[in-house]
């Protein structure tokens, strides 16, 4: 297996995540001064440089020797108090500290997963597994003649029936159909539209009927949120699965999200297996019942 491909393997992600976490804990262990050196505080050259830079950035000029001494003294003071806080267990039971540390670990697991881009083959595999999510719905293109419910009241339906008869008999040519009805705020002819699109424009009743109508014939009256319509479905485009290229960017976004979730979950599951977890079932049941 080529080493680049190796980088895409979930197992490798997992191991990488573990490695980084190990490094993190080593790093934290050192800077927190816990562990073997718990009674030793070392102000290293790096630390002094960091203090100096922070000061310079905030004040616009480097610290004087006196100011630097004071910075170091402050750092030591904070470190001493911090270690005492840890030693006294003050970090325990603090929800904010707990949550923050838990988040740091979770983010770490995710960030490792997020750095690896999916190959074409992986996109294809993800697409194959989730194809229905990307299905392009059935669409119809249609023309219609409108009879305003507001202006014609109950007469709208009769007018629509009359128009339908004239169109069906050939008395009026399809090209002149629109002249039989009222002016309409939306379009008279629509290119292929999905059921949802039609529903958002004409209301649910119209959308429901439209998709049952025969192709290339005048039908109606079909009620909408606005009045009555005589409708001619021009074309019915069956539902289909898109080619990968048509949904590639959405696919990549979805796969990325999926990977982050599964990386976080897998990492968590791995950690969780190391614990024996005991929940007081009686208290739980009692709490639920008492609620």
């Amino acid at each position, binding site marked *: 297996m080529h080493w680049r491909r190796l980088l895409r393997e979930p197992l490798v992600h997992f191991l990488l995540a573990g490695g980084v976490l190990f490094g993190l804990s080593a790093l934290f262990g050192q800077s927190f001064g816990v562990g073997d050196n718990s009674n030793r505080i070392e102000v290293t050259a790096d630390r002094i440089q960091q203090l100096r830079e922070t000061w310079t950035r905030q004040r616009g000029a480097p610290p004087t020797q006196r100011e630097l001494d004071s910075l170091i003294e402050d750092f030591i003071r904070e470190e001493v108090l911090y270690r005492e806080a840890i030693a006294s267990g003050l970090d325990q039971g603090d929800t904010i500290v707990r949550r923050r540390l838990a988040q740091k670990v979770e983010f770490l697991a995710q960030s490792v997963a997020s750095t690896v881009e999916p190959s074409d083959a992986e996109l294809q595999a993800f697409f194959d597994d989730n194809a229905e999510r990307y299905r392009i719905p059935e669409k119809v293109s249609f023309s219609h003649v409108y009879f305003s419910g*507001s*202006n014609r009241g109950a007469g709208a339906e009769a007018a629509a029936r009359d128009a339908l008869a004239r169109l069906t008999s050939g008395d009026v040519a399809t090209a002149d159909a629109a002249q039989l009805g009222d002016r309409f705020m939306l379009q008279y002819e629509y290119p292929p539209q999905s059921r949802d699109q039609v529903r958002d424009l004409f209301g649910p009743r119209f959308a429901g009927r439209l998709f049952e109508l025969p192709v290339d014939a005048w039908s109606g009256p079909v009620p909408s949120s606005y009045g009555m319509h005589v409708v001619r479905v021009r074309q019915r485009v069956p539902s289909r699965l898109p080619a990968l290229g048509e949904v590639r960017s959405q696919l990549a*976004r979805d796969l990325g999200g999926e990977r982050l979730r599964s990386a976080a979950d897998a990492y968590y599951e791995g950690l969780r297996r190391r614990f024996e977890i005991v929940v007081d079932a009686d208290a739980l049941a009692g709490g639920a019942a008492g609620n």
Partner: protein
Amino acid sequence: MPRPPFRMKGRAGLAARWLPLIGVGLLAACGGSAPEAPAAEDSPPPAAATPAAAVAEPERNTLRNAYFGDFHVHSRWSLDSYVLGGNRDDPLLAYRFGRGEEVTKADGTVHQLRVPLDFMAVTDHDTWLGKVHLCEDESDPAYQTPTCEQMRANDWFGTGAFEGRGRRSPDICGQLEATMDAGNKCYERARHLWQDIQRNADAFYEPGVFTTFPAYEWTATPARYGHLHRNVIFRGDAVPEWGGGAVEMENRPERLWEWLEAACTGDCQVVAIPHNPNLSGGLAFDEFGWTPFTTEMLRLRAWAEPLVEIHQIKGNSECYRGLGTTDEDCNFENYYPVCEPGQRSGCAHAPDFVRNALKSGLRLEADFGVNPFKFGFIASPDDHQSLPGATDEDEFTDKAVKFSTGGGLPLIGRDLGWDEKADGGNISNPGGLVGVWAEANTRESIFDALRRRETFGNSGTRIHLRFFAGWGYPADLDTRRDMVEAAYAGGVPMGGDLPDPPGGEAGDGPSFVVWAMKDPYSANLQKVQIVKGWADADGQTAEQVYDVACADGLQPDPGTHRCADNGAQVNLSDCSYSTDLGAAELSTTWTDPDFDPALRAFYYVRVLENPTCRWTTHRALARGVALPPSDPPTVKERAWSSPIWYTPAAP
């Protein structure tokens, strides 16, 4: 496009934005040739794939279609969204939501729009852009500063709101003054994010299907006053280099206009859209205290700002009963109480309302030869949770969308208890949408509609609204089949200027054609009104509201110009409403009975629906609690057309 020189190597900084970002980030590196595991970047390069649907040129309708959009939404890139809203979702999630995808926010909640938007722009705050980003970048020393720690802990006061009111953030930006120098890290970071904003907009643009614009919110908040914010929307990918935010421009809108005029040249086109004049402390349509009205300045202002946002979550800005009007329909989602004598901020000033601004624009035009307040209307939500276009009163409940206002104002609707309302009066509404009449759903067509002000705003329901004026329209034009064609041919649409009358004789005045159609998901229409404002020779301004088309056979009283109420009801126990009253569509061809050819005037349309439940009522029902006592239980959703102006012919 050049890559930003910085990379996010951080842990929390990166992973916190994991969900929406990662996909596009993954795409970026397709080819897989990076020898080391590549560091993911905060902002992705554009999605490589162009949707297949975009290949064909979208069909154009010369009579124009209505498209609905949102020009005001914030993501985690905005400090107030991040800290006050606790929002951890970025602009990409906003675009995905806007185009209709089901999205899962970082807090685990799942959201989907009932009706996808046709177009949108994400308008993150300029002022904090670089700083928010630096505060999340673990590779940058700013990350360790207490200010950034507090930001990440959602501590608004701990951030000092990032010195938004003119103070600087040397601890984050690396130097004392927030200048545009290359050495200023915040400015540099904002410059790169501006490129990311463009890339994000480009990546989601599908001509004919979903149109996106590069944009940001210019966030001037001068000390002691309300705000002077503007959303800056560019027509396409010809945009200037980042020119600094409101703080760098000393919170002076004229510097924004001057910069746009100087920098947005060639193919670049732009509009700046002021919003929330209702919160501007009397300044919105003023000289700001430092920009005296001159012909030159007013001309620049009129060029830069052809539109105003008339409605959003932080209240309505059309009008306020008692402040220059007695119109009872102005009692609608007003935010602040009326100012007490001597009170400057936190209250409603008469000059801050759009109808009054239109009137003062007529007066200024007489004095200076240019009308700086010749505004077309838009509306938007100003959501701060990366969820654009979610304007339904009931979804506002169902999704428990959290809003925040920023600027030190109390939170709106954030896990709202009714006590908050009693305490702070801070509840507003779900906001509205922008409507445009455009030939196609493309950047070019929609932007051109903005420029000619062929726009309308609404309070969140998708009422369709046409409005034209011309000389000598036939009296039945509104019912004729060729109405739209004839109205365009013989007059001007909403947002336009009436031409001089033929032969120079205004006679009985122009005729107006108005036509409105209901939202299939909302109540029937109750009435269509025309709001007229005018200025006389002495500079005195006045207004009159005319009911011009009322449902259920009602006719306006000749004295009051108002129709009786149609009696439509709402059942407050389940929010069902009258479906037998009101109309699916209303239209009329109208002439002004009080037309005076010697006076400058404007006319705009307001459409009112039958009443429906306000979001507070939906929410109370869902929670099984009592209605908030101080809020109206119902609202009349509405739409406003841009005005049409009449100017007497020069003698």
